């Protein structure tokens, strides 16, 4: 089920879906076979409903629009009559939709261009302004000029884009360094001889990777019935201890 849900997100809305159908069936966007495309579109929407996935209301509105166009196309005779009375009447019921599709497609392509620029930009690394303290004169004014809140946030934003430290990526290393089994043994060892420990004590290290491993190790030890936990009251301190009857190593 999840699999399909993710794929629904592959479309940015009904226009995007229609563009896809137009591409897929290699039809001319300026001469859409409404009947065929509408059928395909409706099949999509129905399948989504059968899979009990949330369909944004926009998809349903578009379905109604397509059906309206389809029915207008089936009644050419009447149109001609109206046309005689009103010369401004749109001669093709598809016009408005086509216009929207073409317009949307332009921006979809523009978004692709931006994406390319984004990825080539991400290969360029900058550095923060150098520390020029040795060049400044201390007696300078205490005013900070016309700096705005936006400037401050932009400075922060720029920092997040900058390289951090010479540290290796910590999480990656940790995930190799502390296998859960090792942490399980650790905890078992700490509880040997019937010692009771506070749950929070196990999390002495602030590193998140370490915390995650510890947490999972405790869960696993509970599952294997090596340890048990006790809590006196809601939100109280959880005590963890070796399970009785389990031979200590």
């Amino acid at each position, binding site marked *: 089920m999840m699999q399909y849900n993710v794929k629904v997100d592959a479309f940015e809305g009904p226009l995007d879906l229609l563009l896809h159908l137009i591409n897929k069936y290699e039809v001319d966007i300026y001469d859409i076979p409404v009947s065929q495309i509408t059928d395909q579109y409706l099949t999509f929407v129905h399948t989504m409903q059968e899979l009990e996935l949330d369909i944004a209301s926009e998809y349903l509105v578009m379905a109604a629009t397509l059906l309206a166009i389809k029915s207008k196309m089936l009644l050419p005779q009447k149109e001609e009559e109206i046309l005689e009375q009103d010369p401004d009447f749109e001669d093709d019921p598809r016009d408005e939709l086509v216009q929207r599709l*073409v*317009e949307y497609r332009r921006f979809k392509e523009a978004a692709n261009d*931006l994406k390319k620029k984004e990825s080539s930009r991400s290969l360029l690394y900058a550095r923060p302004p150098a520390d020029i303290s040795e060049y400044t004169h201390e007696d300078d004014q205490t005013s900070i000029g016309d700096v705005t809140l936006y400037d401050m946030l932009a400075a922060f934003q720029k920092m*997040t884009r900058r390289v951090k430290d010479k540290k*290796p990526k910590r999480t990656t290393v940790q995930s190799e360094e502390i296998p859960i089994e090792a942490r399980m043994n650790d905890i078992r060892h700490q509880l040997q001889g019937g010692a009771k420990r506070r749950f929070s004590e196990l999390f002495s290290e602030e590193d998140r990777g370490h915390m995650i491993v510890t947490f999972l190790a405790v869960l696993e030890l509970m599952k294997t019935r090596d340890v048990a936990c006790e809590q006196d009251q809601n939100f109280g301190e959880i005590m963890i201890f070796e399970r009785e009857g389990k031979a200590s190593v």
Partner: protein
Amino acid sequence: MTNEEIKSIIESLLFVVGDEGITVKSLCETTSLKEDTLLDALKDLQQEYDDKDRGFKISFIGGGYQLTTNAKNASYIEKLVETPGNHTLSQAALETLAIIAYKQPITRVEIEEIRGVKTDKPLQTLMSKLLIKEAGRAEKAGRAILYGTTREFLFHFGLSSIKDLPPLPDGSEDKEEEEADLFFEKFQEIPE
């Protein structure tokens, strides 16, 4: 001053300003040089870095010149330091941003008309990333908020100015969407 000396000074100044960049005006004032002389030396330097494939690159981003690394060496940098991760934007955010970039100032409703879907979330994301900002209020339409791009937008995409955006595509190209195709493959596997 010889051309070499000017280039040397430019290098030092570019180094000092870092990712904040420096305008031609600021460079001229600091060096007391004419704009032409300065720009010549700057182009010269730029050319030199490119020709010799040096470790630096001079980019004109957000109205200022700045020094960055050569894209070719990116893999080594990634190996050495904790890089800021991929701050790539979602498709929804990119589409919304493209519309704003080309049509600014523009209201949410106008954006939604083009995209054909609700656009609250992408707008929020773009605001929180400082890529767009409120750019006044529409006179009509109940004084709705107008959106425009920011300087941060230029930095994010390495654009010198909003005019540096490529012309809006005419929409005639037929590009296949791989991801969507994937869906349809799956879609057809569904038992009746």
